[in-house]
């Protein structure tokens, strides 16, 4: 728990992705990278003509369909997949059965197994199951996110049970029977013939510390996940599955596991069901990476995407790893925000691939971004069909924070400031602070203009400025200029809105506060903490004397 905010790329700190969760995060990160390189960025609703021929799914609410354009050409994207990947490749990738056929044809190692369509009888499937070694996996042919997958089937009786569960209870008649390859699972992201990121997908787990109960450890783990921009949207939820899993491992939720004891909570490795992404890009052996690259190459047109592989633990099997799945529309959040290791820049690799001419533009230090919620709002309620984001300011970006005191909280003044900022190509906001202060942030690529803005601030007639405090502003700045004041005192509507917003904020803060307080109490009340109290006292005295 060293990192106060979790691991991230310097240009993608948590606060700028707060409005881009889950699959929107993929879109946002890639779109932002392209935009920061000077490409034109547009967002669309699913009604747009440009996506009529592209395989897309789950596109509501908007924030998953976008295009990037240079002067020469435009590329359309759905989440992390661009239009260079043809539909035929997407189709192959989304049918596990087809995937396997193509992989086998190209000599890429896959678990032994076979797919069955809905006409296949149970007997037929059981018959086949007898021909491959146990343990086995049974999975629906076209369910996503690990849904309905039954693993570690050790004998025929278990197989029959699983078959009934998947085909009848869950209602997935099309299934795949596969040899279960034991080993660690990895998600590898490949662009062209290069592995950009690889991370180990560890099922939801906790590590004992000899002090906390399993239940508390889960809470502590979630505390850590909350600091991570990707993982905070998929905390470990104590559901039936977890309770049963823990029980099966011989624990109760109230047990205190010894220090260093790793306890898994689920079978599923998906990040979205509580799994940990652990970056291994630098340590994964080349021959394993090559398998991932070959897997992608095996499908015609699949120029970039995610490859799920299991690295074999059983040395008696000749292949070092097997490919279990391809993801033409892979989520990339796990690589952008791993729990351990380094964040990997998949967005840059994708943009390099589609717009190689922009390769030289380094956005590592970029501080400017756009707000997803604001940009998507008219798309969200279909007031618009397309929105093009204002172009990113290109070049080195500077910003300053001015805190101005005086009778400066007037709406007309803020409107005027906004106009001055925009006319000078400056970005930022003006915000009311307590009583007679406003905070003004202005940023742009022209340093002189930012400094000159200090004198502009006091040029509005009829206001008295007592003091202007200035400082360099290093935080990210949103493109455009916002009047972020809590309310406009002349409008009842705005006041009511502000009141409701504050009410919400208050509730949220109270909740957060209570949660933290509870956490602290827990720790402070723990017997060992009490035991060490005298020692701490001594230290305090010693420190105090020094």
């Amino acid at each position, binding site marked *: 728990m060293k990192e106060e905010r979790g691991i991230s790329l310097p240009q993608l700190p948590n606060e700028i992705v707060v409005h881009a969760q889950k699959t929107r995060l993929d879109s946002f990160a890639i779109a932002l990278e392209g935009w920061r390189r000077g490409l034109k960025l547009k967002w669309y609703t699913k009604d747009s003509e440009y996506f009529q021929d592209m395989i897309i799914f789950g596109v509501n609410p908007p924030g998953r369909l976008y295009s990037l354009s240079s002067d020469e050409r435009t590329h359309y994207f759905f989440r992390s997949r661009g239009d260079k990947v043809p539909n035929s490749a997407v189709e192959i990738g989304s049918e596990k059965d087809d995937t396997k056929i193509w992989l086998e044809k190209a000599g890429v190692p896959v678990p032994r197994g076979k797919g069955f369509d809905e006409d296949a009888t149970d007997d037929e499937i059981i018959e086949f199951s007898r021909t491959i070694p146990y343990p086995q996996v049974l999975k629906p042919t076209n369910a996503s996110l690990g849904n309905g997958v039954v693993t570690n089937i050790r004998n025929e009786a278990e197989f029959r049970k699983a078959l009934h569960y998947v085909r009848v209870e869950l209602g997935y008649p099309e299934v795949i029977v596969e040899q279960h390859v034991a080993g660690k699972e990895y998600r590898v992201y490949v662009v062209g013939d290069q592995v950009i990121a690889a991370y180990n997908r560890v099922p939801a787990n906790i590590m004992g510390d000899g002090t906390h109960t399993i239940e508390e450890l889960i809470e502590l783990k979630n505390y850590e996940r909350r600091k991570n921009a990707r993982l905070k949207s998929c905390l470990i939820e104590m559901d039936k599955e977890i309770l049963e899993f823990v029980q099966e491992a011989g624990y109760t939720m109230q047990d205190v596991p010894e220090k260093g004891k790793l306890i898994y909570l689920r079978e599923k490795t998906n990040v979205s069901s509580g799994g940990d992404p652990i970056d291994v890009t630098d340590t994964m052996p080349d021959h394993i990476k090559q398998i991932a690259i070959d897997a992608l190459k095996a499908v015609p047109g699949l120029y970039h995407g995610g490859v799920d592989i299991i690295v074999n633990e059983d040395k008696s099997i000749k292949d070092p790893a097997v490919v279990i799945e391809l993801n033409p529309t892979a989520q990339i959040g796990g690589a952008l925000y791993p729990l351990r290791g380094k964040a990997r820049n998949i967005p840059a690799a994708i943009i390099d691939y589609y717009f190689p001419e922009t390769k030289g533009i380094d956005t590592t230090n970029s501080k400017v971004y756009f707000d997803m919620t604001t940009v998507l709002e008219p798309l969200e309620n*279909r*007031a*618009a069909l397309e929105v093009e*984001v204002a172009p990113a300011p290109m070049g080195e970006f500077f910003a300053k924070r001015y805190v101005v005191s005086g009778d400066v909280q007037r709406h007309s003044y803020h409107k005027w400031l906004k106009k001055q900022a925009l006319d000078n190509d400056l970005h930022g906001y003006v915000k009311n602070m307590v009583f007679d202060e406003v905070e003004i942030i202005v940023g742009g690529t022209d340093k002189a203009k930012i400094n000159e803005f200090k004198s502009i601030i006091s040029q509005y007639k009829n206001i008295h400025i007592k003091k202007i405090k200035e400082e360099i502003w290093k935080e990210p700045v949103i493109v455009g200029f916002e009047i972020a004041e809590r309310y406009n005192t002349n409008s009842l509507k705005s006041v009511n809105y502000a*009141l409701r917003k504050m009410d919400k904020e208050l509730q949220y803060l109270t909740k*957060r*506060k209570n949660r933290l*307080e509870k956490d602290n109490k827990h720790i402070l009340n723990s017997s060992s903490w009490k035991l060490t109290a005298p020692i701490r006292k001594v230290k305090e005295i010693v420190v105090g004397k020094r």
Partner: protein
Amino acid sequence: MSRLEKEWLPHLEDSIPDEVNGDKLSMYSIALEGWRRGLTTKFYNTKYGKKYEINYSLSNKEKELKFAVSKGPNVSKEAMKICKNKVLTKEYLSEANVSVPKGRNFNKNHPNEEIIEYAKTLGFPVVIKPVGANLGKGVIPNINNIKEFKTSLIQVRDVLGYRDIIVEQHIFGEEYRVYVVNDMVIGAINRLPANVIGDGKSTINQLIRKKNYERKQNPNLRGRSIKIDTEVKKNIKQANYTLDSILKKDELLYLRQNSNVSTGGEPIDVTGLLTEEMKELAVNACRAVPGLSQAGVDILFDINRNHGVVIELNTRPGIGSHLFPVKGQARDIPKAVIDYYFPETIDYDRKTHKNKIFYDYKAITELLSSGIAQEVVLPDCPQYDMVKKRYTVSGQVQKVGYRRWVQRMALNNRLIGTVENLDDGTVLIHVAGKESDIDNFHSTLNIDKPKRAKVDKVVEEADNRPISAIGFEIITKKKEASVSLKKTDRKAITKYENEIQELKKQRREIEKKHNNILQSNWWKYTTKVKQLIKK
């Protein structure tokens, strides 16, 4: 001014959102006309020098045409340059034998004698105007002889100090703004200065207030009320009245000299009163300037002598006064503009498209004018007759994500409308769309719901309200609509703010404490101690 004396366009009357007023009407209404005819409509930021302005384009499959205010792409750059410069305009008009007031400019180096000589050649009456003075300041009109001229000249140049002046023929007559598109006169207005008419009962102050109330009902005059300033007070005083005087019935009192709409002037449609000569004058003026396919032509016309002159050509005139005159009939400039640029859509039949659907001007322009978006494209305008319905849903339907869910269901069914929470705990839904889609939506409301909601009853009614903007909006405002901002509200806000600040502080402290504990060496020791104990 009774409502009977004016006639507005039925397809526009209910289709102007509150945010669209005055100058904004031009872009709004022309884009609306194009959009309703099925053209793809796009709004975008353009930078003119230092300033950003929202422009728009309309396109069909073959072409995309760009517009600014009411001006389309057929008005050439050259034409704009000519019209911007009054001297150049006059040259072009004279060249084409279009009458203009004769006159010339004099700068500070010209001696008074030379100017007097020139005035003699013009013939009286003449007018002296200072160059660069605002709003008729220092203008001396109707100078009838040399003696008067000499005194006036000294007054303007030497006493008031305006050395650069224009000496011009004084033309009697009324001023008209004539809107010409493609050599055709589409509409003409003339403007009365701010005024009130007595009813024998009300004071001038009351009459002004009544007038301002009427102006609020007019999209073009909204936000352009008559302010009781020094000029207004002066005019009232000159008529020997005070603000509290009661005007006799039907007595007309002008409150200002100038007829600027923005300070209280009243546009009156006079298209039907134009003589052939007047129309010809306006059309010929446009013909005189190469590439001026549409313009607002300002003419001064003396009906008694059936003679007039052209004073000014405007390439980007506002059209709000033609659309919403205070008196007379509205003239459909947007129709004329779109007919001209997209002649293939002339057949667009307003009767079969009786939906008065419009677009969400506010959402779109706010995004652009905040510098967040560069361009916004509207969804296509539905080209079928719409059915309207309203639903009131009761049960546990507030604070359970019901409105979000309704929005999703409505959008899935291609419906437009709004959803809002009512104070009595119910949810009100307005929808418009194809009948089959509405039926579908209705049955969804009846059988489905978001997880946490509990629906008791869904009541369907016919809806007489005009169709709302395209899209499906969740209305989050409402509540205490008529209460004005009181001290208690301010207090509440301050209280909230303080509480939030306090909580933020507390949270920061607790968070710090928490991290300290987790990272402290003591924490590590305790685990060891714990193990020791276990052993």
